[in-house]
């Protein structure tokens, strides 16, 4: 399971029949020092995340289980949760949306 930021949406008409009806998002993993990874992933989204939101991404069988269409589908990455906050040991707090980052230093708690 990884943390990532939703940066886009993917549409595909001609695709594997097992993927009909799924929503696909482009997500970019990030690190605890707030840097974005160079790689991007395509994740199926069964819960309705939006662009800019921070999400939990699962892989493999866990992803197919999260998608909820059985285990015989042609996909192995899915969004399993939308992050509210991420509290780090050094006291920093990463928000649930990229827009919350600017506000974060101002809050004293």
């Amino acid at each position, binding site marked *: *399971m*990884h*943390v990532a930021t939703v940066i886009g949406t993917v549409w595909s008409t001609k695709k594997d029949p097992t993927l009909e009806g799924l929503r696909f998002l482009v997500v970019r*993993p*990030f*690190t*605890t*020092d707030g*840097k974005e*990874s160079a790689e991007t992933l395509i994740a199926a989204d*069964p*819960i*309705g995340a939006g662009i800019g939101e921070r999400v*939990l991404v*699962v*892989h*493999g*069988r*866990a*992803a197919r*289980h*999260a998608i909820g269409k059985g285990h015989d589908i042609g996909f192995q990455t*899915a969004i*399993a*949760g*939308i*992050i*509210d*906050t*991420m*509290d*780090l*040991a*050094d006291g920093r707090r990463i928000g649930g949306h990229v827009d919350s980052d600017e506000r974060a230093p101002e809050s004293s708690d």
Partner: protein
Amino acid sequence: MFLGKVVGQVWATKEVPDLRGKRLLVVEALDDMDDPGAPKVTPVIAVDPVGADVGEHVMVAFGKAARVACGGDGDLAYEAAIVGIIDDVHAPGAPSSWRPGAYTGDRGAGEA
């Protein structure tokens, strides 16, 4: 399976049913801690059935091993779990940061 250090906790309200009520910890692999200035790699978010605290060193398992450690039958919507808290590591040549200790977390404070 890898050795890591718990560096934080994640909270999510909107999530798949399998993750509801699960404690989700942010774990960074210990190899990255040799040089504190080295670029961070993306952390692993692991379900925590054993009650690890921020700052502790832990063993993280993946895949079915992780799901079974959380009491499931293998069909759960996550694939990483903390399966043990490290008391000590003896590995000649390993960086001193591998040794557990100097917990930054206030034990018990995050249990509420």
